[in-house]
């Protein structure tokens, strides 16, 4: 067996409990130093969008307001993603340290963890850890409190502005942007909202300095990334790997030897067929060569026994249900895409109808209000283009 091209890293899940030391050290440093460390580490948002974390904190710190919030987005709902659950179960203290340091920098007294309803079983354990953490904050004289806010089963609430709406008691319908959360987030106040994994990474950066993080990865994509691996793999699970790997190497390490496609980034991500494995690099878009794919870390492997029509059908079912219904392109578009592929499959529409559906998907990318509707085209077009015959026959 000639396996293991990819080195397994152990930054996030490393069992280290020097919370007090890290926090004490960080709280004593000037805000600018901390922000510079974050910026020079190259850390970008790990929820999938990839906004530079240091810049987000800096922008929010520069806004004048007597009320600011730090929110940890734990509404992990993307199909094929389960890393945040694991981070919150095994190293929640790292997330809390990230939140507290952020609070000190931007001047916030209140933080929330927005925990998806499906993860409610984590709440009792988290509450205990938060309780201990509050005692530590008191010792260190940081006026900051963290609360858990429970979601209630809505994928769209992972979208940051929908999440604020949800916390404000409303339907989880995304807002127009701008204004961005850095200026107007929860309750209309400046808010830093970060993914669970992003916050956990800041712990390592404050502990080891930015160099160790920056030395990992390639070009615009620095550091390590936690991947959720599922589907047709003998070793499903959570793996911390370096950015910049090709899908070919990934599949050789994790596939069952028969992988015909990998869905990168969940239902809202891209489907890559076998012939493109060696040209596809996992990282944020930027100066990477070849096709590079940003990702929240969801990697679903499909082998040749799987019908890609069924896969796409499943994704579209998902989007039809999870579309918030606020804007027409997404509400109607998702339903029409689903009806459309069913009609082609049944022979009620000619195969050329798929081109029309692709046009519709592209129109959604341009006109939908938020990332949900815009990203339906990602999986739709990449599956239909690469597996057209499976859509028809």
């Amino acid at each position, binding site marked *: 067996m000639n396996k293991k091209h990819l080195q397994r890293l152990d930054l996030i899940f490393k069992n280290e409990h020097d919370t007090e030391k890290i926090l004490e050290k960080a709280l004593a440093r000037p805000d600018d130093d901390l922000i510079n460390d974050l910026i020079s580490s190259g850390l970008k948002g790990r929820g999938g969008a990839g906004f530079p974390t240091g810049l987000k904190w800096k922008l929010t710190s520069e806004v004048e307001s007597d009320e600011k919030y730090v929110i940890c987005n734990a509404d992990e709902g993307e199909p094929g993603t389960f890393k945040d659950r694991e981070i919150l179960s095994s190293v929640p203290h790292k997330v809390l340290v990230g939140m507290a340091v952020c609070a000190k920098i931007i001047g916030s007294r209140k933080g929330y963890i927005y925990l998806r*309803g499906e993860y409610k079983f984590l709440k009792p354990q988290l509450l205990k850890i938060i309780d201990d953490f509050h005692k530590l904050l008191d010792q260190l004289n940081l006026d900051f409190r963290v609360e858990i806010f*429970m979601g209630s089963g809505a994928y769209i609430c992972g979208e940051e502005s929908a999440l604020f709406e949800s916390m404000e008691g409303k339907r989880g319908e995304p807002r127009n942007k701008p204004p961005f959360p850095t200026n107007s987030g929860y309750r209309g106040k400046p808010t830093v909202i970060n993914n669970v994994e992003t916050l956990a990474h800041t712990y390592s950066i404050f502990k080891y300095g930015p160099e160790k993080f920056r030395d990992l990865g390639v070009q615009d994509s620095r550091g390590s990334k936690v991947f959720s691996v599922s589907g047709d793999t003998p070793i*499903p699970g959570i793996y911390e790997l370096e950015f910049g790997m090709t899908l070919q190497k990934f599949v050789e390490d994790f596939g069952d030897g028969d992988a015909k496609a990998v869905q990168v980034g969940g239902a809202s991500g891209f489907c890559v067929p076998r012939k493109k494995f060696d040209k596809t690099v996992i990282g944020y878009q930027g100066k990477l060569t070849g096709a590079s794919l940003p990702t929240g870390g969801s990697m679903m492997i499909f082998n040749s026994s799987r019908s890609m029509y069924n896969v796409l059908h499943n994704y579209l079912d998902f989007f039809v249900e999870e579309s918030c219904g606020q804007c027409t392109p997404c509400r109607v578009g998702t339903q029409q895409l689903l009806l459309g592929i069913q009609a082609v499959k049944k022979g009620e529409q000619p195969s050329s109808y798929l081109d029309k559906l692709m046009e519709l998907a592209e129109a959604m990318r341009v006109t939908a209000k938020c990332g949900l509707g815009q990203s339906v085209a990602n999986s739709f077009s990449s599956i239909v283009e690469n597996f057209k015959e499976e859509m028809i026959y």
Partner: protein
Amino acid sequence: MSEVKQLVKDLAEEHGREMESLLPILQGIETREQHISQEAMVEVARELNISAAKVYGTATFYSFLHTKPLGKYVIRVCKTITCMMHGKNQIIKELENVLKVELGDTTHDGKFTLMETNCLGQCHKGPAMLINDTPYTELTPEKVRDIIMQYRNEEMHAN
């Protein structure tokens, strides 16, 4: 004061009477009553001094909140892609057999409701389901029978 009124009042005392309290209050009602009745929604609107339509809007948006009564134990089987690939349909079939209900229905004794749900975040251990808040993973038809049996036994002892 009716039971629901009292419950809403208690929840409002606990979570506050701001818009920010609405979701926690609705979640509290759902947990206690297994659904949010019209009476409860009107009562929440009164306590928070907002329109009942607003409460209804929020209560009907979220897939974990219901306006029709559910069973004491709500079974949510993940139907998203990897759980489907790993045999979700057999799990549903087995549950339908054991509980003698169809997907979406509640057993006659009002104990179990069987439904599907979107990704539970247990993709590496599919098929997966939640029974109320508790996740069960790597399900097989045998495992599902045992789990339901366990719940039924507990119910018998409780009565």
